[in-house]
């Protein structure tokens, strides 16, 4: 809704531009409507005080004052300063104390440098995250070459204290971009101390697991080799193989003459011995058949 009666800005309620492009439905006002901000006199403590004092003077005194003002080449501006609280300064005093140069470009550079450390925390966390990803890839490359298992980003889990320390270190680097190398070295040391031991432990554990796995595999391989069935191989012509060496004559055991009569059995005893042998054979066969 447009306010047709455009009073000075302190009381005006101009039409708000709600839609970006589709603005045809908002009527335009003329300059007279907005010019009200220049109407009326201005009021302030200084102006009111000066006007009150001026009004108390006689006409002659006023002329003298005006003459003095018109020839104000020697007026010290400090005298004009009523010492009022200047909320309009918006921190000018602080800027003067900091000695910030007035050039706009230099001001922007200095404002960047004199930022709060906390402003760099989010950037520092991001950079740490990127670094961890790079280190994961680098480690896995190394592990793969050594035939070890790969690791994930969870390997870089760290305590809150470690995280906080790393973030602050990186934030300092970002804040002091053009400073000496000491800040960067400090960060490298922090990264090294945090991750080197951790990674070393991971690699050692990987190696042990691999050794154990290799040992188990070897053990199983040996175990399985005993149970293997005899394979039917080719008929080997023994005649083609070299006969085993016959022991030399001198090494041959001497034959002793055996007196046959000593070993001659009684015929009946001989028959009994044969029957005994047959009986044992039958018993064995019966067991087999069962």
């Amino acid at each position, binding site marked *: 809704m447009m306010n047709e009666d455009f009073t000075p800005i302190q009381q005006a309620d101009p039409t708000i531009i709600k839609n970006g492009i589709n603005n045809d439905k*908002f*009527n335009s006002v*003329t300059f007279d*409507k907005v010019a009200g901000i*220049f109407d009326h006199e201005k009021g302030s403590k200084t102006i009111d005080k000066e006007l009150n004092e001026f009004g108390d003077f006689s006409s002659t005194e006023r002329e003298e004052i005006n003459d003095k003002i*018109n020839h104000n080449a020697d007026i010290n501006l400090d005298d004009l300063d009523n010492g009022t609280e200047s909320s309009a300064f918006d921190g000018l005093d602080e800027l003067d104390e900091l000695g910030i140069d007035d050039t*706009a470009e230099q001001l922007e550079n200095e404002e960047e440098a004199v930022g709060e450390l906390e402003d760099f925390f989010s950037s520092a966390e991001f950079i740490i995250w990127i670094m961890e990803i790079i280190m994961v890839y680098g480690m896995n490359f190394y592990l793969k070459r050594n035939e070890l298992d790969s690791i994930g980003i969870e390997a870089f889990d760290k305590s809150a204290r470690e995280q906080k320390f790393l973030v602050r270190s990186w934030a300092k680097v970002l804040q002091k971009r053009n400073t000496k190398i000491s800040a960067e070295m400090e960060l490298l040391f922090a990264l090294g101390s945090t991750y080197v031991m951790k990674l070393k432990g991971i690699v050692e554990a990987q190696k042990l697991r691999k050794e154990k796995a290799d040992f188990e595999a070897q053990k199983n391989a040996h175990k399985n080799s005993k149970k293997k069935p005899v394979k039917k191989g080719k008929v080997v012509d023994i005649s083609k193989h070299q006969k085993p060496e016959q022991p030399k004559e001198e090494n041959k055991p001497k034959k002793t003459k055996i007196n046959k009569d000593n070993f001659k059995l009684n015929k009946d005893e001989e028959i009994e011995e044969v029957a005994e042998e047959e009986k044992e054979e039958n018993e064995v066969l019966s067991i087999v058949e069962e």
Partner: protein
Amino acid sequence: MDGKRASNCIGIIGTNNTGKTVISEEIIKRFNAKRDRIKKNGKKYPSNYHKLVVFDVQNRYEEYMRDGDINIMIGDDGWEKKILALRDSMFVADDFKVLIDDDRISKDLLKVFGYRMEYGIDLVFIVWHPTLIPPRIYKFIDKYYLFRCNGNDKEFVSRINGDKETIAKCKHILDYNFEKHTEESYGNLYPNFPFIFYDTGTNKAVKVNF
């Protein structure tokens, strides 16, 4: 209502031939009309009251100058102190960038901004692009007269002090209204020099002369 008001710090931004100086003349006319009313009332004021200070590179304000008004020339020293000596007055700088040498904002000029409320000095700066106002000055500007302005939206929005969304909408409106009539002279179609008046304090904007 006692008829008193606070001073304004106004940035008039727009590319060439969009009506910036014409509107600044309208502002000065309003100021002169107030001076005439005060003089007519017969109330006596110190001689440092109700003065007009201009930086007039195009020599457009000569006819509006009166006794005691100040016309700043390039290279003048101490002009800031002359403004600080005034009360309930107005300072209009056409092509403000030329006045600020090497973007050096003197401490006296900062005092002009700082004391503008207390001394009742309206400040009006005219530039043809937002990047031509030093960043430090942007802190003090509370009202804008936004004319059609070249440059990308991001540059425009990032420089002007105020609600970014509202400023972006203003830029779109200005560009849209210009672009949809590219075959005809922008000056002929909009003889009244349209612009958007934006008050950063209330975050409200209104189209003027469209």
